[in-house]
């Protein structure tokens, strides 16, 4: 099971990686949307596409919203599950992201259980129970 964590904060990437690795995922990281697209192209060529991407909204170079739009417009990537993980909490932003193609939405701050709950709602595999705090 492979996942991609996309956030310009290394601390946040570390937190999300720990959560996903605890659930049995092999996790790659990207610091912005463009790096994430580059990773998807490489992974596609190598046959190691992730099944899940956790996407921050506000990032330099390419933000998460533009990344999601680009993924949704790319036929070979339409199987990728996209979960927005962001501080953008306004209802309008949530609607925008879901309309652009995000499958789920998590608002920071979050608990590990919030991520697990969303993965279960999405029907994604979880190999191990998660206990304790993200740190």
């Amino acid at each position: 099971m492979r996942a991609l964590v996309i956030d310009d904060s290394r601390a946040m990437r570390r937190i999300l990686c720990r959560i996903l690795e605890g659930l049995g995922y092999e996790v790659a990281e990207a610091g912005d949307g463009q790096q994430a697209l580059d990773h998807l192209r490489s992974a596609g060529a190598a046959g190691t596409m992730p099944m899940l991407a956790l996407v921050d909204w506000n990032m330099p170079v390419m933000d998460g919203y533009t990344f999601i739009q680009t993924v949704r417009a790319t036929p070979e990537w339409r199987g990728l599950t996209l979960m927005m993980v962001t501080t953008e909490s306004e209802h309008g932003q949530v609607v925008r992201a879901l309309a652009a193609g995000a499958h789920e939405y998590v608002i920071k701050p979050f608990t590990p259980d919030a991520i697990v709950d969303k993965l279960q709602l999405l029907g994604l595999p979880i190999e191990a129970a998660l206990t304790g705090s993200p740190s």
Partner: protein
Amino acid sequence: MTQILEAPTADDLLEVVAATWSSFLGDESGELLRPDNSVESPAERASGCVTIRGGWNGAVLLELSPRLARVAASGLFGTPEDELVPEEIGDAVGELVNIVGGNVKGMLPGPSELSLPSVTVGTGFSVHVPHATAHLRVGFSWCGEPLVVRVLQS
């Protein structure tokens, strides 16, 4: 549903900061984040700032003592304090102000845009946001160290 306010209140900041701390930093030290408006902004500090532009205009600043910044970074990264590099401390402070500022933005008239965070570390500096004046200041102590959150409004 989030209540839209004209400007954040002290209780709003308490709630946001407490939620952020408990989600990412709460359990390891066993220490609670304690509201304490008697704390002063430390002379030597790490200061994170995000600006909000649009339906509401202003900035949110987070000021931590160097010790508290290290403790917070250690908690976020899961790395012992003595193994942290300066960039990790700056990143941690930046993410914390991003989360607090983003949640403040969510309480305010929109639509607004949140800037990427900036972090300054040092002694004897002050952060000025053009055309913005002090609106709100809330102090906390955690592990005996000061944390000050300030909201500036344009």
